[in-house]
């Protein structure tokens, strides 16, 4: 970042030209990703797990054997059996079905929040990086301020103030993740802005919005995509934490977090909801993180060499 933050001397311009030539010979991003995924066993497993997770979430109504909300007072606190693979909870609800429906929650939050945060963060970051001056200082200070709070603390603060409805949690996670995207976008914009093609476009009289959309954004997208994969794991984790604390997804709607919460109060009767919830969150978050790491490796020229 430092290198690109102080461009303008002839030496680095030459370097840039050289690098671009080298880049032109490299495989495309898609090729790189494919290569990384199939190169490593851990990534392969992670990819499979993520695919299973997504399929489960998308086809939850088909896959879940029971209605996740339907109670059966005669069947409370049952241990795993053929009818109920993960047993039932204290209301006789099928834990397996609740876990499957809970995955929808996790997937939706895992996708929506990083996407919204990316849109918001990139807008802020590019604006700050491209225009500089007072705009940059203003945006950067706000971002710094938000960054001073740990994301979980920020999420708890906002959730406690707004209450825990679906969109509130999306808003919470979006706000919590925006600063990260804004920082990366700003730094990348500063770098790209100095590229000759941008200077050429400015010289040719291309309007600012077009420069930003045609030349800046496509060239800063790689680190943003990496960040999105990493935040997807985080947002699943934060949503589970909020639900565990009772300020996330509200019962009776299942979320992995509130399945663990309910299970904790009922721990002496059946341990399966806690085990299932805890293990699933661990596995899914780990898989997405491994995948995110691999994507980063693929897109980062330095580690890719």
């Amino acid at each position, binding site marked *: 970042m430092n290198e690109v933050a102080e461009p303008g001397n002839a030496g680095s311009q030459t370097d840039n030209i050289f690098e671009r030539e080298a880049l032109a010979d490299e495989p495309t991003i898609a090729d790189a990703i494919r290569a990384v995924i199939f190169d490593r066993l851990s990534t392969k497993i992670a990819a499979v797990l993520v695919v299973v997770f997504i399929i489960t979430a998308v086809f939850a109504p088909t896959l879940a054997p029971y209605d996740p*909300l*339907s*109670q059966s*007072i*005669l069947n*409370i*606190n049952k241990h795993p059996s053929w009818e109920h693979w993960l047993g039932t909870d*204290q*209301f*006789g609800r099928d834990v397996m079905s609740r876990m499957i429906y809970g995955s929808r929650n996790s997937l939706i939050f895992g996708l929506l929040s990083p996407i919204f945060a990316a849109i918001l963060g990139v807008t802020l970051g590019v604006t700050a990086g491209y225009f500089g001056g007072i705009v940059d200082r203003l945006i950067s200070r706000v971002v710094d301020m938000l960054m001073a709070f740990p994301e979980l603390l920020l999420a708890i603060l906002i959730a406690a103030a707004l*209450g*825990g409805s679906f969109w509130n949690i999306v808003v919470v996670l979006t706000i919590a993740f925006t600063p990260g995207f804004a920082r990366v976008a700003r730094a990348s914009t500063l770098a790209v802005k100095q590229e000759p093609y941008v200077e050429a476009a400015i010289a040719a009289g291309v309007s600012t919005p077009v420069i930003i959309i045609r030349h800046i954004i496509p060239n800063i997208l790689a680190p943003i995509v990496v960040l999105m994969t990493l935040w997807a794991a985080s947002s699943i984790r934060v949503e589970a934490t909020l639900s565990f604390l*009772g300020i996330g997804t*509200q*019962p*009776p709607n299942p979320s992995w977090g509130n399945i663990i919460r309910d299970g*904790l*109060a*009922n*721990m*002496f*009767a059946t341990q399966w909801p806690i085990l299932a919830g805890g293990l699933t969150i661990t596995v899914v978050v780990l898989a997405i993180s491994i995948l995110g790491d691999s994507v980063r490796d693929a897109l980062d020229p330095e580690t890719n060499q």
Partner: protein
Amino acid sequence: MITRRTLLGTAAAAAAVGVSAPALRAADADTLRFASSAGGPRKADPNYTTQGADNWHCTQMFEYLAAPEDGDFGKAPSDFQPWLAESWTTSDDAKTWVFTLRRGVQFHKGYGEMTADDVVHSFMRAMNDGVSTSNYINISDVTASATYEVTITLNNPDPLFLGSTIFTKNVMVVSKKAEEEKGEGFATDPIGTGPYKLDVFDTENGVFMSRHEDYWGEPANISKIECLYISDTTARTLALLSGEVDMIEGVRAPGWVPQIQNQKSDLLFDMTVPGSFNTLFFNLSKEPLQNIQVRKAIAHAINKQELVDALQPMARMVYSINPPSYPTGFELEELPEDLRYEYNPDLARELLADAGFPNGLTLPVNTSQREDYRSQHLIIQEQLRGSGINIDLTIMDHSAYHGSNRQNLNTLNINSSSLPPIPLYVYNNYAASAANMKDDSSGGANYSHYGVAMPGVDEKLEAMLQTTTFDEYVRVGREVELQIQRDLPMFGLPTLSYTVVRNPRIDLGYEVNGGYAYWRFCKASIVA
């Protein structure tokens, strides 16, 4: 240098000490530890306690003029025994009650002997201030007719005066001198006459008490009592299983009693019967609950038998507001057919359609994190879903839940309370317009606004007060019960036994059969 091995060794040793220390401490000391399910103590003054857990320490430190034997409500006037009053007489019209006080009753910490002035003061403050003033509106005057004699005049006769008024926590006797001296500080540094006196009031951990050595009666067996607060169910249960505490407030959630029995088979369960009333209040100031068809639809959509089954062995069926074993409670067959509100989801749908909601409706409802409230609301939510009524549930902290109920922010709140078999007490608290809940939380527990948002039972309650015989009183009381059932501002859900789980090393000294959701420890002893 710290190596990994020494670090692990130290950690293991620390863990071992940490696990075993509380158990040793509990077994050695002459102390009874009770843990309730609230976050921490708020007040130790019986006229101002708003959370049930605080009554546990109040009842060790304060006393009534007269009370039934430990372990139940007094069912008849003859069940009441002299306590701080040695004897009493009542006039022929049952409107004047004269209590002769016991002599030589000493307040805690050298605050002197209890006299009629203290008793008068205790009654006056319950009538004018505190959390249950509506219960004392029948009292016209309380005077000290002699140093050891108190005369209470009533506006209307009350054949159940001992149960309805004397045996209520708000009029437990406090030291007038101490309250005047301490002002608001009295609530955290209380002075009473009970067998235990306050040592430490710790808002974080609990209330710590020790034996009152100048107690007028039989001194307490165990020298120290600790009323602790552990709101987390799992932590509280583990504290009991490890022996760190001797008694815990049970959890009234589906399947809880059997699962605890599985953990440790020798644990004892003290349960009140019928236990807490669970009353579902329809907030008549909220759309569309003003509509009787909607209320009836909700009543028909609730399967009470399923609630009873889910909450075994604590739940007992109720067909109206009062449980059938109470004087004005009804058995199913005694109710007119249209007032039975038997479970019938199809009828519920029809009623909803009649009310203009053919596609069902959605109601936002707040509930408490506490398991008994939460379980009931979640079960009812699922039952109502079957009739097209969607409950949008928000689960909140227990205090926040009561706050929202008292500030008119809830729609279908449940109130759980151990109420005595005194019909007027129940109606005065829940159904009288004087107990109307107000937006600024200054009101009472009439969460429906019954008698305010719609005509209520005030006149019939007045008529109850005019009766001079118990039979007549009950007859009018049953009319009140039926009218509430007809107007349906509230709906009786199954009662739930208040349950305390006890380590067998503690012998309570009496059996718990019923009564309020708190009991005395002065007869308890450590047997193992």
